[in-house]
């Protein structure tokens, strides 16, 4: 990814994140969160992880934040806007941010700045040759069919955890239905 695009999306994300905590209007804060997610998705796509980037928008920005926005709108939090910021939580929050930043720079200072190893497309293509012809061809062509690769790893390497997570989600869904039905009967 060109460096300019990296900075663009990083700044979008950081400004969005800052706006989430600093804006007084809850709806504006929720929208700032969405823009932060979009910036994050841009960063993922810049790393050639198209699938993760698109999922970031589809799931977080497109579904979860809409529900958040809704709850905020339905509650209509007028008091939030008029509240003056209190000193103690503000100082505490800034202190935590400062501590983490110092720690981050400490770690970054110790780790040498390594060049990332480029992907060995030829070896990857040979590895996928017996599994899938089209994936292998695309890898040999220098493309990264990340959806196929992610699917291959998840469904072959981590099939049981995936099924368990699926059952967990199903239980959660059934639980929601049971809880919301109980009130009417």
């Amino acid at each position, binding site marked *: 990814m060109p460096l300019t695009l990296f900075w663009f999306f990083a700044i979008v994300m950081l400004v969005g994140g800052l706006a989430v905590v600093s804006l007084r209007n809850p709806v504006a804060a929720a929208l700032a969160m969405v823009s932060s997610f979009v910036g994050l998705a841009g960063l993922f796509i810049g790393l050639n992880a198209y*699938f993760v980037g*698109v999922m970031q928008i*589809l799931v977080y*920005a497109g579904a979860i934040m809409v529900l958040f926005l*809704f709850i905020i709108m339905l509650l209509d939090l007028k008091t939030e806007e008029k509240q003056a910021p209190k000193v103690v939580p503000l100082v505490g929050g800034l202190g935590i941010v400062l501590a983490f930043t110092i720690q981050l720079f400490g770690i970054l200072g110790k780790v040498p700045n390594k060049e990332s190893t480029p992907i060995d497309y030829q070896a990857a293509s040979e590895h996928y040759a017996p599994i899938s012809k089209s994936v292998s061809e695309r890898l040999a062509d220098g493309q990264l069919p*990340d959806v196929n690769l992610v699917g291959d790893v998840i469904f072959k390497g981590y099939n049981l955890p995936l099924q368990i997570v699926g059952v967990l989600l199903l239980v959660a869904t059934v639980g929601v239905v049971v809880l919301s039905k109980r009130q009417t009967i």
Partner: protein
Amino acid sequence: MEILIPLLIILAKIVGLTFMVVLPLVPVCVYFERRFSAVIQDRVGPNRVGIPLTLFGGKKDIPLFGIVQPVADAVKLLLKEDFTPTNVRTAFYWLAPALTIVPSLVTVCVIPFGSPLTVNGEEIKLVIADLDVGPLFIFAVSSLTVYGITLAGWSSNSKYPFIGGVRSTAQMISYEICLGLSIIPVLMWYGDLNLSNIVEHQSKNGWLLLPFWGESAPWNNGGDYTAWLFWFPAVIAFLIFTISIFAETNRMPFDLPECETELVGGYHTEYSSMKFAMFFMGEYAAMVIGSALIVTLFLGGWSLGPSFDQWSAGLEIGSVGIGGLLGLAVFMAKLIVFILFFILVRWTVPRFRYDQLMRLGWIIFFEVALINVFLGALVIAAPHLGIVITLVGAVLLAAVSSALIWVLKVSDKREDPNTGLLASN
């Protein structure tokens, strides 16, 4: 220079495809909608606006079947007073129309509009961004349209727009699930998420809904009926996907968010002039993109049978292969036929009630799409599995489907025949 030329090509594609193909389709759609609805209702429709010769001292206007009507509409919308009511939340009120139209236009970038053009031996694909996650990208970006509608409803500070916004969001989130689930068997069949490759595959091997040439016809591939068997899950996917697109774009019979009899105008009640026009354009652009996606996935995109595709790929003027433009024409023809179908449905089917809409989405389509995923997988895997396992799979699938139908029948709440209300409420 090396960077400049590809950039210029991309810019030309963006301007050409988004602003000269998709956006002009919006007024065309409006014209078709008005004329077609007039035909259906046995009226005349807008047939007067043509070349206004009387303005320049002529004796008579040339009506031209009213083709210029959309231009007059656009001028009217631009020149109207742009009124902002007093107690709206101004920033969000201004932001909302842009948030509605921008995602619709962004999704244009992954639609393959035609077969590749060749200029001096170099291939130029008629798609702005040849992403490997095409359909997912469209779903992701178009799911952001919800924000525009929600914000419009909320920031108008008025009851009816708010109810419209709430309805629209609930509807769009529900039908997004059906939309995503219904095309899973289709994507499994292609094994690819790149829309250009999908169309290419269909051009060689027969459209998904017309598997009559290339590899998918049994007389070409040594008696393999998989493609013909896959026709059944493909048709189910096609039906669910098309109807969900109707709901997703807030078209009749699912236009509950803006139904006039209940909500005045829905989420755009308080908007006027160009801001209203932007909602309008966003809605129609979403309809165009939805039709384009259906045509691309199920009806072969820009292809028109193998002999036509080969003939058009060989066409050249000088050193420029112009086959892509013919592909573009075929694609547009299919698109317009589909848009006419959208309009036909709008003026034929009465509006659903809101609980019926939710029932259709969550109880019928969701389950059918889920079963369809298994059906599609079974059809695709059957040649590799052997007859016994396939039969066991088919029996299991039939058992699960009938169990599901039974559960739905048992849990179904009957409507009171007199009031039309559900019994428990």
